[in-house]
């Protein structure tokens, strides 16, 4: 009998590998939508506290990304799009990614709670837990509705931003949540339409893998038809001005047109175009919301000066 003692190989992970674990592109979208929620919320908050809130939200999003990569390393290794990520490529050990993610998540929630407010910290903790436990560990591998329900995690950042600025939640941030929630299926299903083989090889039950391209294109159109009026709802309900309303209606019409073309056509082109436009759609809507609010504030200042 021999007693084998195994020792982990010393790490070769660099700082860049850890940053990659945080999914910087996803993080930038999270920070942007949270920033909009933050800036349109009522009340005034000191810029240092605002910056602290945004850093915590960014770090929390990065932690969720790292924990997702830790759990999904087996799937990532089988997919062309993700095979070069730090864990499947062997640059970061799974345990390192787990420790990194847990440390960042804990730190982000605690600092947000201590320095900003407890409502925002609670929402951030819920978002991270929902993304990691409900989406990554449960839904992603079991149902084609994975990104529909899991999309709630990606839709929460504007509510966290709003809560960080005001300490409470109202209907307005809920509308922003719903816009991102209904935006997620057309966005991800458009991507999965031209990555179907990748998802099938990895055993991920994305809608095109389970129900085929035809049904996916039909559902993309249905969600686009729901999203277009929902995108304009902040204007209908009086939360945003005509600048936002016009942008939302034009972009919504363009989204439906692309979804119709995708439904009618075949090949990668229409799905790639819809995927690319969906990113622009969300960016334009949130940027216009910000611009609209800045114009209102500017108009208010001018009126105040004239009086």
């Amino acid at each position, binding site marked *: 009998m021999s*007693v084998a003692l195994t020792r982990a190989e*010393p*790490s070769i*992970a660099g700082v860049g590998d*850890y940053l990659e674990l945080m999914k910087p592109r996803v993080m930038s979208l999270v920070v942007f939508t949270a920033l909009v929620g933050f800036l349109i919320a009522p009340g005034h908050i000191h810029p*240092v506290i605002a910056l602290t809130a945004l850093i915590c939200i960014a770090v929390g999003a990065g932690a969720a990304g790292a924990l997702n990569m830790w759990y999904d390393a087996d799937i990532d290794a089988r997919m062309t799009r993700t095979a070069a990520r730090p864990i499947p490529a062997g640059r970061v050990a799974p345990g390192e990614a787990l420790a990194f993610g847990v440390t960042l998540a804990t730190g982000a929630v605690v600092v947000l709670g201590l320095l900003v*407010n407890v409502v925002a910290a609670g929402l951030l903790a819920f978002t991270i837990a929902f993304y990691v436990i409900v989406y990554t560990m449960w839904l992603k591998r079991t149902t084609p509705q994975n990104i529909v329900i899991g999309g709630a995690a990606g839709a929460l950042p504007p509510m966290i931003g709003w809560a960080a600025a005001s300490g409470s939640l109202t209907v307005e941030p809920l509308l922003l949540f719903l816009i991102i929630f209904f935006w997620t299926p057309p966005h991800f299903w458009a991507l999965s339409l031209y990555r179907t083989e990748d998802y099938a090889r990895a055993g991920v039950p994305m809608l095109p893998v389970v129900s085929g391209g035809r049904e996916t294109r039909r559902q993309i159109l249905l969600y686009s038809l729901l999203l277009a009026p929902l995108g304009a709802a902040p204007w209908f309900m009086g939360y945003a001005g005509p600048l936002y309303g016009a942008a939302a209606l034009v972009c919504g019409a363009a989204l439906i047109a692309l979804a119709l073309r995708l439904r009618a056509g075949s090949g990668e082109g229409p799905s790639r175009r819809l995927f690319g436009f969906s990113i622009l759609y969300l960016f334009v809507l949130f940027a216009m919301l910000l611009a609209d609010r800045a114009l209102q504030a500017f108009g208010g200042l001018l009126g105040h000066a004239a009086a």
Partner: protein
Amino acid sequence: MTLASDRMNEPDNKDPPQWIKLTQQQLRARRARSIAIAVALGALVILFYIVTWVKGPAVLVRPL
């Protein structure tokens, strides 16, 4: 059965202890990670210091 601890207690064991020798790449990566951790901790200390100045005595007030 021979355990590592038995071998270590043998008086005639002249083998030097086997330490892990890091490669240049591992040393560079470890140094970069250590610097990044130091920078992050330093930034956290500065952040708490500034926020304490900004909030003043209200730093301990955290309404729900």
